């Protein structure tokens, strides 16, 4: 069987034959085919099954509005469910499977649903499956879920790459049919930057589907010539295979270019699709129109198609759906299909025209005033039953029936900013309304201009108007100029199982039931019946259903409602919206200058925001992370350890008012801080909660270096700019981030000074007297490298932070390690850092959770009342200063080996364990190798006055109950003697 339905002519490459497979059978086709045209060429009419009743389905259309002809394309991890055969460009080796059927397309067990369709009417599921209650999840729902759905995902990661890009133009033209091409020619010749996008792989729109001439050429030749001229213009960019999916605010359009869907395999590095964000001043929508069906009994059999689609298949793809074709129409356009097919040698059984005054034809029979009342054929159309005006019926034997109910302008993008189309009585269709997206105008059939000549003219005029061109009108080629007279005919009287939404199985009967039950607005209709919710988004069904609802309600269509459309215009792979930002590239990765060194040392890394930080440094033989961390803590506290703290935010604050500025952003005072000193700073949000903490080092009268926590660096900088620009605009203060400029290392432990003295150049005295606790200054190290030294401590030990330009960070870390060998220096990671800060009782991220005040954290005294500090006023609200507010405490299990769980709650030792008796919670927990005990920090009601009290730590989630003692949060060196040593 080789392409038995192939006709002559067409825009396919007959010199090349390609192979493809559908449902595991081999077929041949030609480049230029779609999967749909290739299947028809091979006389395959049955392509899928419907959603609910599993009715056999074939192609309805030849475009992106297709509801029925959807398949699983490709295989393995590239399997792509619900792919429209009508827009799938043929390539050699294409593979497709039918879907939503079992065991086979021809015999689908769930086809039984069709027999019970009467019980499965619209919304039936809302009225049943309620008894017994427990059966819903266990029995009813799984059955429904298995039966529903359409295609399948492979369950494997999508292996393809996707890109995102950005383009800018003066005029974006959407659709390259006659109006779009003529608009592009007009704008392009005038020198405007133009993007012309079309979803098809061949420009020309309906010109490729019709036999009309444009000027002295065929329509498709004229289109090709226009494309050639446009291609030669440097100011015009042609984007084929590109669907403009949405109109967003301020002239931003989303467009999906399918760069790799028409090839069997993508070259390395090339994307399958690109999501373009197109920024344009003006947009011209030339999206054409879509033919609408007529509903009649059993109008969904494979072989029943839109008449215009039959014409497209015949003229463009040189294919007929059958050798015997009938037409059912309410307008002249249906007759064109008959004429074109007849000219190609296809037998026209009859044209059934509902109008009494249908045009006469001598080549084939025209049945005027007649209607199709039923059809036959289980897996494909075999007979059409026609009611004649005299009351008799006639049966036509045919394999395809072309249906034409008139044309609906493609107004979709005009609705994307909630614009509503308006009803046009002359066209009996919705046309774009007045509230379009700013900058968008509409031309051609999309604007209700239904002739070729009209489209050309409308495109030229609209482009000139959009660009405010004053040039004379271009000379337009002469073309067909017979607008279609449309008198609506929505459905054949008396039909019931007449499909509107073919994919979701919504029939005329369902619309009537919806009305009967009070679901009478369009929104209710759609939601109750699922009309228009299928993968075709109701492109062929919504308006017909609305018309039927109007008729049932005895109202006009505009009174009944309008249907609007939402983005995207056609469905878009989720991968396309993700682009490159997935997997490891989901967020940028920030590395510290010592990253590569740490990697050499076998460090285990942890994500902290976008940073990767060394979490611990395992040594050979250490089997459990705790062994490494305990060692790092012990050795730091016993001798010296080094930790990369580059990730802390650093902000350079300069200016005559720098100190005053910090006085506002910090709760505590900064004006009196001497040069050469550092101070701990507590930053509040205006609502009085702690925002961040850090240090500010005064390097000069008018120069501070502020540090922030790693997590809050960006927020704090933004906040400080807000304070500077919006609250105190006349302060002389300048800010700039220096986080990345400096590699900074904490050198902590009793031997830290000794180690640093080996690298700090001798002219800088860092003895305790010359460089006391909280001292800071510019120094040089290793014979002349500029550096900064801060004597600050997070660990509670004698400690320094030393900073050098980032490019030398790696070298400095290596130097510290070699110079520190005599002290058995250890590098330590974030885990040991965390243990030591808990031992010392320093609040960190788990305590600064955005709901804690300075008072909660035991830092209430830091909030100065003598100055205008942000957050000070609201921090005094009544509930925030009640006597029993949460206070930071230390938590120690009565038996040291008992676990302390962060997130556990604190209860009295006796009494109920429930929310009513909850008195606080554990914020952080660690094992202290110094105390040989698990310890924790927590927030406890009135905690400051409960030292020594025994409580129960409960964590029912992790099945834990531990008796604990409430202690000071400062487990190690509470007096701070080590810091000052």
């Amino acid at each position, binding site marked *: 069987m080789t392409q038995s339905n192939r006709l002559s002519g067409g825009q396919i490459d007959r010199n090349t034959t390609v192979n493809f497979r559908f449902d595991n059978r081999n077929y041949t086709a030609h480049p230029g085919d779609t999967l749909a045209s290739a299947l028809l060429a091979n006389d395959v009419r049955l392509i899928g099954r419907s959603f609910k009743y599993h009715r056999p389905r074939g192609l309805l259309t030849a475009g992106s509005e297709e509801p029925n002809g959807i398949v699983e394309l490709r295989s393995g991890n590239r399997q792509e469910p619900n792919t429209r055969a009508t827009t799938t460009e043929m390539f050699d080796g294409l593979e497709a499977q039918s879907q939503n059927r079992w065991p086979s397309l021809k015999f689908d067990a769930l086809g039984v649903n069709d027999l019970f369709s009467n*019980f499965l009417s619209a919304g039936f599921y809302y009225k049943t499956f309620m008894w017994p209650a427990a059966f819903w999840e266990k029995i009813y729902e799984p059955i429904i879920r298995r039966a529903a759905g359409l*295609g399948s995902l492979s369950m494997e990661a999508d292996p393809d790459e996707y890109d995102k890009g950005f383009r800018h133009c003066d005029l974006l033209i959407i659709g390259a049919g006659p109006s779009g091409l003529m608009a592009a020619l007009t704008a392009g010749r005038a020198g405007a930057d133009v993007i012309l996008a079309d979803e098809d792989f061949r420009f020309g729109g309906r010109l490729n589907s019709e036999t009309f001439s444009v000027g002295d050429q065929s329509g498709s030749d004229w289109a090709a010539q226009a494309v050639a001229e446009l291609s030669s213009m440097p100011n015009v960019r042609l984007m084929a295979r590109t669907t403009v999916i949405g109109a967003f605010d301020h002239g931003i359009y989303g467009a999906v270019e399918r760069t790799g869907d028409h090839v069997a395999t993508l070259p390395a590095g090339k994307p399958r699709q690109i999501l373009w964000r197109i920024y344009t001043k003006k947009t011209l929508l030339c999206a054409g129109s879509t033919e609408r069906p007529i509903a009649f009994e059993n109008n969904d059999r494979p072989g029943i198609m839109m008449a215009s689609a039959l014409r497209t298949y015949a003229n463009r793809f040189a294919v007929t759906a059958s050798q015997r074709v009938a037409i059912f129409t309410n307008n002249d356009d249906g007759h064109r299909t008959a004429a074109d097919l007849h000219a190609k040698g296809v037998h026209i059984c009859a044209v059934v025209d509902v109008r009494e005054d249908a045009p006469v034809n001598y080549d084939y029979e025209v049945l005027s005033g007649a209607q199709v009342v039923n059809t036959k054929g289980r897996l494909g159309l075999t007979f059409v039953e026609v009611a004649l005006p005299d009351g008799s019926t006639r049966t036509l034997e045919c394999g395809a029936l072309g249906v034409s109910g008139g044309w609906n302008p493609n107004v979709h993008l005009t609705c994307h900013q909630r614009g509503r189309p308006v009803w046009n009585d002359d066209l009996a269709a919705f046309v774009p309304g007045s509230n379009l997206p700013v900058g968008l105008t509409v031309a051609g059939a999309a604007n209700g201009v239904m002739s070729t000549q009209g489209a050309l003219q409308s495109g030229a005029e609209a482009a000139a108007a959009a660009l405010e061109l004053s040039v004379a009108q271009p000379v337009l080629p002469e073309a067909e100029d017979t607008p279609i007279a449309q008198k609506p005919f929505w459905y054949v009287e008396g039909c019931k199982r007449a499909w509107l939404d073919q994919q979701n199985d919504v029939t005329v009967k369902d619309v009537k039931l919806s009305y009967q039950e009070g679901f009478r607005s369009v929104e209710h209709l759609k939601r109750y019946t699922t009309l228009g919710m299928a993968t075709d988004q109701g492109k062929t069904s919504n308006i017909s259903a609305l018309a039927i609802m109007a008729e049932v309600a005895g109202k006009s269509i505009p009174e009944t409602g309008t249907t609007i459309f939402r983005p995207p215009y056609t469905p878009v792979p989720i991968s396309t919206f*993700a682009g490159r930002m997935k*997997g490891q590239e989901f967020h940028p990765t920030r590395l510290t200058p010592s990253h590569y060194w740490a990697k050499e040392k076998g460090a285990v890394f942890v994500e902290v925001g976008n940073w990767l930080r060394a979490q611990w440094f395992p040594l050979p033989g250490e089997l459990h992370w705790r062994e490494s961390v305990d060692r790092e803590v012990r050795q730091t506290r016993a001798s010296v350890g080094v930790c990369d703290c580059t990730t802390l935010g650093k902000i350079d604050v300069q200016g005559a008012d720098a100190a005053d500025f910090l006085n506002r952003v910090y709760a505590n005072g900064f004006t009196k801080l001497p040069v050469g000193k550092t101070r701990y700073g507590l930053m509040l949000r205006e609502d009085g909660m702690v925002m961040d903490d850090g240090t500010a080092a005064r390097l000069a009268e008018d120069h501070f270096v502020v540090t922030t926590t790693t997590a809050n660096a960006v927020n704090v900088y933004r906040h400080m700019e807000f304070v500077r620009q919006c609250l105190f605009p006349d302060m002389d203060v300048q800010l700039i981030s220096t986080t990345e400029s400096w590699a900074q290392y904490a050198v902590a432990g009793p031997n830290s000074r000794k180690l640093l003295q080996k690298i700090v150049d001798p002219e800088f005295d860092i003895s305790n007297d010359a460089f006391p606790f909280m001292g800071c200054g510019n120094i040089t190290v290793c014979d002349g490298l500029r550096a900064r030294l801060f004597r600050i401590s997070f660990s509670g030990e004698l400690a320094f932070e030393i900073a050098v330009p980032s490019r030398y960070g790696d070298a400095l870390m290596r130097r510290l390690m070699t110079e520190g060998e005599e002290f058995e220096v250890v590098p330590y990671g974030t885990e040991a850092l965390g243990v030591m800060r808990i031992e010392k009782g320093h609040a960190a991220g788990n305590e600064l959770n955005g709901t804690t005040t300075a008072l909660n954290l035991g830092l209430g005294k830091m909030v100065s009342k003598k100055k205008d500090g942000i957050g000070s006023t609201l921090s005094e609200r009544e509930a925030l200063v009640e006597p029993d507010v949460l206070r930071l405490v230390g938590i120690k299990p009565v038996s040291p080996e008992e676990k302390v769980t962060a997130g556990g709650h604190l209860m009295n030792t006796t009494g109920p*364990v429930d929310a009513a008796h909850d008195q606080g919670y554990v914020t952080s927990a660690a094992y202290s190798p110094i105390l040989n005990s698990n310890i924790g920090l927590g927030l406890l009601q009135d905690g400051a006055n409960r030292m020594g009290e025994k409580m129960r730590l409960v964590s029912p989630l992790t099945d834990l109950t531990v008796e604990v003692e409430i202690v000071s949060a400062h487990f190690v060196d509470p007096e701070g003697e080590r810091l000052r040593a």
Partner: protein
Amino acid sequence: MRYSGFRVIKEALTGHKGWKPVWRDPEPKAHYDIIVIGGGGHGLATAHYLSKVYGHRNVAVVEKGWIGGGNVGRNTTIVRSNYMLDGNEPFYEFSMKLWEGLEQDLNYNAMMSQRGILNLFHTDGQRDAYTRRGNAMILHGADAELLDADQVRKEHPYLNFDDARFPIKGGLAQRRGGTARHDAVAWGFARSADSHGVDIIQNCEVTGLRIENGKCLGVETSKGFIGANKVGCAVAGNSGRVMNMAGMRLPIESHVLQAFVSEGLKPVLPSVITYGAGHFYVSQSDKGGLVFGGDIDGYNTYAQRGNLPVVEDVCEGGVSLMPMIGRARLLRMWGGVMDMSMDGSPIIDRTPVEGLYFNGGWCYGGFKATPASGYCFAHLLAKDEPHSTATAYRFDRFRTGRMIDEKGVGNQPNLH
């Protein structure tokens, strides 16, 4: 009319002639005991409980468009009670219990499906916070389960475990969480309220509140003045607009939240899953569509549509978390306007105007709250005192410092 499987069969055999409108379409009376403004989920639920539990039958719901056309018809249908704070958890757990009996209460299948919800965590800090939250849930009588990475992988092998920028370290599961069919919730409440005598008045826009001497006397509407002893406002998304008619400024901003649905697919997701390292949450509907969402667009708006950056952000999170959905196609996107409050929690309270009551500030968590919100608002309207599970949802909590801030981001609504 009672719905049942038997009834469906009977109607099928008799041509479906017996089905009646699910609710009447009455003209407004001159006066009601109580008027509820807003025919969304919360307003209809309020009417249901007012009539069925509190015995108030002289009640009207006035709706400017069609009922169920607001946020109850535009959400990702998630039901859960996995809150941390004392002000919230009892309320949401009350709501969960109402969901569990909703179909029987309403005689309408809202397809409440307790397929579970899993919140993933990716850092130790998140694990600690989820531990605190899970414990709080259990202490309040809800269910919670902490899963480690291996357990998550066993239940959800398709998640990204091997190429993740932010590896999954575990998750907090609530097995009783799940989804419900959002439209059906609105219709079910409407049907029940209607059957108990409540007038549901559609296409009746409130254009003003008649307030004299500090007392609310009723509502001016597009269908004329309607008097009432009490007026309750349940119009989340539009709270600012309506309460402005009473001269009130609110601790609320209106923001748009987008939601997305994919084409229908055979079952792939067994439960609701939320990503802890990006803005993405997803479930699969009974029809097979992946229903997903993420962050709000982040700027004040009353326009029910969003923009591309958030669409991309959500899909980046989605593909990063579950790479197997990449080839599924996004079918439809839409936007709903949210009442984003100053602490991320709602308000159910009296107002300074006598006889005027307020229910709003639901942020983007209003759907799961629907039954309890209706119940508690009905309680407040009927008894003039807060329901025991909703005592914290007061206007004055911002003045006194009793915020209910689950996320800890303070008075910046677009961060909640």
